[in-house]
């Protein structure tokens, strides 16, 4: 090192502020680490298992005492919804602080303290569009894990063309009367409330006659039945509304202005789906270890099949590049230089890559990857097969990949949409 390097250089105000900020954040990180170590029981620091996920709601049942303790500790500090304001049950963390928390939790392997669609999707939209009363009533109940939410968007006749939905909500004094059906209502059979898009006006173009309603599923006339899926599970349900009376105070946003709320919410849904891998149960083995076990390794440590090795590297590299893209989006936002085009790519890229991985896993398993029922196959292998089947929904739910590509072409590349053809 040169002598110049040892001379203290004057620090500008901006540098000083950045340093102070970094110092504060480091203090915060240290505090957090201490808190997490004291409050997150060792059993809650193991890779998450589906049967041990902590879901909220009226029928809430904790998978274990440790899970309850971890949930309650987080709830009391607002860490179930770290970036929501404290008056609505959150912790009021800044973006930077929330990121530090996420990183520290990842570092220690802490499981998410609460799973809920209200937490991931409805909450962020209510923060933007909810009335003060709605925020107080619903956000707090979500953050405290007291109410579990389902989403009522798609209908049998309205999938990608969501705006053509037909479930009607008719004005009847201080209530709306709702009739119709919603499909792909994830876990609606276990939910307490459902947020729905309903038609309140048939005289105007389809997007302009939609409203956003919050409906208590204990209301008379609401019924739900699960739909068996190719994975053998039935995560998705169909929910029916037969003359259901919904108080008008449960309208979010303007009457006929539900499309704006839906779009806000969809942003969060897509963000959530792009990172769904972090929250779901992981196989006991990493992809690399699974491959080692299934196809064997050579003396050099290289996988037995060079073709497979190349495909694995291709997938793992893309997975890393997607992480870098997410990091770039975050850093741009922090620097106030967001490129609005980039977030549009995440859902398409993230979900496609999960499926690439699933296909690799299935091939690696060979004959053990061909049954979900054969009990002579280990449970962990059968789980991977089920996951492969279940993940086929990822590129469909929350806006299909084809819709995502339409959006990218239109909004990122400025290519005209189909109805502007002439």
């Amino acid at each position, binding site marked *: 090192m*040169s002598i*110049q*390097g040892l001379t203290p250089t004057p620090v500008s105000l901006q540098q000083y502020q950045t340093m102070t900020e970094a110092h504060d954040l480091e203090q915060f990180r240290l505090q957090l680490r201490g808190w997490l170590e004291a409050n997150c029981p060792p059993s809650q620091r193991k890779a998450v298992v589906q049967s041990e996920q902590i879901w909220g709601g009226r029928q809430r049942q904790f998978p274990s005492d440790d899970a309850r303790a971890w949930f309650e500790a987080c709830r009391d500090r607002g860490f179930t919804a770290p970036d929501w304001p404290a008056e609505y049950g959150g912790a009021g963390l800044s973006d930077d602080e929330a990121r530090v928390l996420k990183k520290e939790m990842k570092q220690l392997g802490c499981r998410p303290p609460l799973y809920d669609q209200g937490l991931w999707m409805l909450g962020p939209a209510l923060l933007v569009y909810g009335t003060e009363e709605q925020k107080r009533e619903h956000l707090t109940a979500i953050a405290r894990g007291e109410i579990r939410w389902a989403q009522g968007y798609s209908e049998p006749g309205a999938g990608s063309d969501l705006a053509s939905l037909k479930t009607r909500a008719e004005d009847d004094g201080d209530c709306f009367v709702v009739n119709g059906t919603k499909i792909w209502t994830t876990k609606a059979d276990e939910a307490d409330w459902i947020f729905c898009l309903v038609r309140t006006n048939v005289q105007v173009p389809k997007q302009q006659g939609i409203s956003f309603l919050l409906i208590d599923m204990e209301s008379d006339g609401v019924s739900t039945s699960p739909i068996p899926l190719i994975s053998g599970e039935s995560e998705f349900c169909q929910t029916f509304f037969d003359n259901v009376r919904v108080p008008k105070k449960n309208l979010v946003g303007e009457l006929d202005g539900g499309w704006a709320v839906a779009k806000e919410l969809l942003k969060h849904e897509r963000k959530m789906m792009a990172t769904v891998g972090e929250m779901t149960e992981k196989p006991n083995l990493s992809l*690399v270890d699974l*491959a*080692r076990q299934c196809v064997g*390794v050579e003396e050099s*440590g*290289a*996988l037995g099949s060079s073709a497979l*090795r*190349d495909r*694995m*590297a*291709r997938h*793992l*590299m*893309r997975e*890393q*590049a*997607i992480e*870098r*893209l997410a*990091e*770039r989006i975050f*850093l*741009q936002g922090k*620097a106030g*230089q967001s490129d609005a*085009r*980039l977030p549009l*790519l995440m859902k*398409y*890229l993230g979900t496609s890559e999960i499926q690439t991985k699933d296909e690799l896993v299935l091939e690696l398993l060979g004959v053990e990857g061909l049954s979900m029922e054969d009990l002579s196959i280990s449970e962990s292998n059968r789980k991977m097969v089920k996951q492969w089947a279940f993940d086929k929904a990822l590129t469909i739910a929350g806006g299909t990949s*084809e819709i995502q*590509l*339409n959006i*990218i*072409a*239109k909004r*990122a*590349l*400025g*290519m*005209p949409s*189909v109805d*502007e*053809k*002439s």
Partner: protein
Amino acid sequence: MILTEEQQLFHDAMTNFFSAHASIDALRRLREESPTTGFDREVWADLVELGLSGIVVPEEHGGLNFGWLGLGAIAGASGRHLAPTPLFSHVVLAQEMLLNCGSTEQIAKHLPVLLSGEEVWTVAIDGDRYFHGGDDSVVEVSNTLSGRKVLVPEGATADRILLPVRRSDGRLGVFVLSAQAEGVHIKATRMMDGRQYANITIEKLDGSAGEWLEGSSLERGWELTLNRAMVILAAEMVGSARELLERTVRFLSEREQFGVKLATFQALQHRCAKLYCEMELAESAVLAVLSAIDQRASEIAAQASLAKAMANDCLTLISSEAVQLHGGMGVTDEMDIGLFLKRSRVANQLLGTSEWHRERFAGLAGF
């Protein structure tokens, strides 16, 4: 991963310079008028004047210490214009090799000459049909050097060529080769990207008469230099990809068939959207490793391979698709698209194909 205001300003200034003085038209002129030189000396002198040669060199060595993110942005601008300059050979390969493999005295002696642009240096990397990282194509046997090098960028115009040699004791050596030395045969070749390279044959060159780089860890310096060069090349390639995709979307938005703009067809929209995804993924991989270099990350090999492989794949795909989507015009020499296509295939082979990088990545990841 975010450029500072100064880096952004410098990038903008360089973009303006490239478009005025080192654009695709300049490449075409070079191709037609002076088939023996790969770049314009006057343009190069202006670039040095602007500070390009010292951009990542530490201040104590007389450079600007402007950061690798800044250099990456300039490489991207150069890729957009297919600017024929010794940026890659001289600024990245040769200067970095000197800094990473030279002794303090050698750096003090040679670097000012390189920074001033007085001499142009390059590095001879490949001796084989394919790049494979380390290279034993020139060997030392009792003080004489023999072997062959191919695809040396600016190899026929450079004043000095840094030459990796397998020494008689088995270690790596880096020889400072002078084009005029006895036993050196340099043959200029023009590759399809319109730039000039050289094939170099060395026959019984007296190794004891010349200079060897004497830094303390040559193997590490050699690898570090190549890793950094891969990243800058990847940044250049992503710049080309961005330019190509913009040109292609613009073309589709103007061209009419069946009474409508081609850009209204969903089949074409989805293809372009996918290309855009690939490009931003590659760019993200490049920006991440540039930031890692700036933050003095100790190990960048896996990230450098990630960046180069993503850049290779994205530019190969985008350049082929750009030709196809331009229709008949895409295969004419009049359109610039073909120049990008050809450059992409050369850049793809320089410092490793995607297969090579995936192989290395897998090895580093332990499978």
